[in-house]
């Protein structure tokens, strides 16, 4: 052994009285530990160098920001603006509801497939891959693709949100499924129940509270996402926001942003309350 401590320890173990102790490290030894830490430090420095933020840009940006702020105030809440915000917001919320309902329905079988204890290995890998792909792509990236596929409008946004849902929902539900008490499933297996019956009786009752909680949570996320996918033309309040910027109606933009913040916060509060109730 190269560890210099071992020899000493051996000598000291004679007579059964150890006097020194070091906390076991997760790394092989100290050298590797410090090597890894310095690698992380260098990586951060390299990232900053790649970006090279220039102070002049930062200062210029501040000026533009303040001039934007001054044109934004006061926010435009005229009756016409309210009407347009209302229509856009309603579309966003409708998108989030449809996307959550369909997204959760397709996520449930994917979650079962991605639970190592419930399915054979090949199926597990397929399930995990679907989750990973869905997770890798941001709602906005998906929306860019779906807008190209089905054209501008809320349909593109809904499809993007549906595709993004399993990445969150199926992943967390599959983790919950992997933690179930297998004995309850064995009980159903022992009476001669089919695989579906084992899922319905032995597994589902154990995860249903969590499933409801995750659905509400995902809905909350989808409300937030549905307000932003409009930026790339996929429907909802985001389209209204983008148009207002294009027409330099910054006071209207601010009104929209304020409403988005209010709706998202309201959704988050409702979601938190509802999830606490269920669990």
């Amino acid at each position, binding site marked *: 052994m190269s560890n210099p401590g071992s020899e000493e320890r051996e000598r000291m173990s004679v007579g059964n009285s150890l006097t020194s102790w070091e906390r076991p490290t997760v790394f092989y030894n100290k050298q590797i530990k410090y090597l890894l830490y310095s690698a992380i430090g260098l990586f951060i420095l390299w990232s900053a160098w790649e970006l090279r933020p220039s102070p002049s840009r930062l200062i210029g940006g501040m000026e533009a920001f303040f001039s934007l702020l001054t044109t934004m105030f006061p926010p435009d809440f005229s009756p016409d603006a309210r009407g347009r915000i209302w229509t856009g917001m309603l579309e966003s919320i409708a998108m989030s509801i449809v996307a959550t309902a369909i997204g959760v329905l397709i996520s449930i079988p994917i979650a079962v497939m991605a639970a190592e204890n419930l399915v054979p290995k090949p199926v597990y890998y397929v399930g995990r891959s679907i989750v990973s792909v869905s997770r890798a792509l941001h709602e906005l990236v998906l929306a860019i693709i779906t807008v190209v596929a089905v054209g501008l409008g809320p349909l593109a946004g809904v499809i993007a949100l549906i595709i993004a849902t399993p990445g969150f929902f199926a992943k967390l539900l599959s983790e919950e499924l992997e933690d179930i008490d297998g004995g309850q499933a064995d009980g159903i297996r022992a*009476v001669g*129940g089919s695989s579906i019956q084992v899922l319905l*009786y032995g597994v589902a009752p154990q995860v249903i509270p969590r499933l409801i909680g995750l659905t509400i949570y995902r809905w909350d996320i989808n409300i937030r996402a549905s307000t932003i996918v409009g930026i790339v033309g996929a429907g909802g309040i985001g389209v209204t926001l983008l148009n207002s910027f294009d027409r330099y109606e910054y006071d209207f933009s601010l009104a929209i942003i304020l409403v988005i913040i209010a709706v998202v916060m309201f959704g988050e509060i409702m979601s938190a309350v509802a999830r606490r109730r269920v669990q």
Partner: protein
Amino acid sequence: MLKITDLKKVYSTGDEALSGVSMEVEGNEVVSIIGPSGAGKSTLIECVNQLTESTSGSVVLDGRDITSLSKKELRNARRDMGMIFQEFNLIERLTVMENVLSGRLGYMSNWDAFRRNFEPEDIQSAYEILDRVGVGGMENKRVDELSGGQRQRVGIARAVLQRPKILLVDEPTSALDPETSFAVMELLTEIAREEEIPVLINIHEVELALEYTDRIVGLTDGEIVFNGTPEELDETARDTIYRSGQSRAEKDAASDYKETSSKIENIDKEISF
């Protein structure tokens, strides 16, 4: 009735839990399996309904070899074997009624199971069995509200509602206090006699085996070392099962010797430095 021949089980870790077990359960007898922890008692029970897949050998119930069935045939075979578990294995979040009726799932379509569409006569017998096992009136309680003894009664009710040809029982009392253990064993063996169902029961409290079973099988290190009536289970037989043939005094003496000799070795080491 049930005939186990040369049953072997080697786990994927390489541990041999059963090394060629042969035994029979005939008529309506209650047979208990006793033995020290790790002897393979639970593995043996679970190999009968193949919740644990056996490595080789055969398990024949009513002329059909359980070890060589297709998935569908195995499910049908399991309907004939009621199982009662050590940790009850009831569905905690479902009602007592749903748990008892789940004993009929093997006879129901998935769709009927999903809609909880149970046969009226099954519901009727479920009520009767709940009364019989002493938890009548609790059908709408969730299982997680019940005590251990009540849970095991529900477990018995579920197994009996299967109308099985044999009851497989895995350590039914080890999660229960001594008082409840006797009550549950009493109930279990009584019902088995009333319904004329043979029982294969795996138990570690020898007194319970002596009191409630017709025949005792002793399992040690995956092998059967005793097979006889409770009267035949004398001190020598117990030594064979629990202490590999040594009497308690001999075993104590042996471990004393081991301790002493290792102490001497330590002293030797210290002196040599």
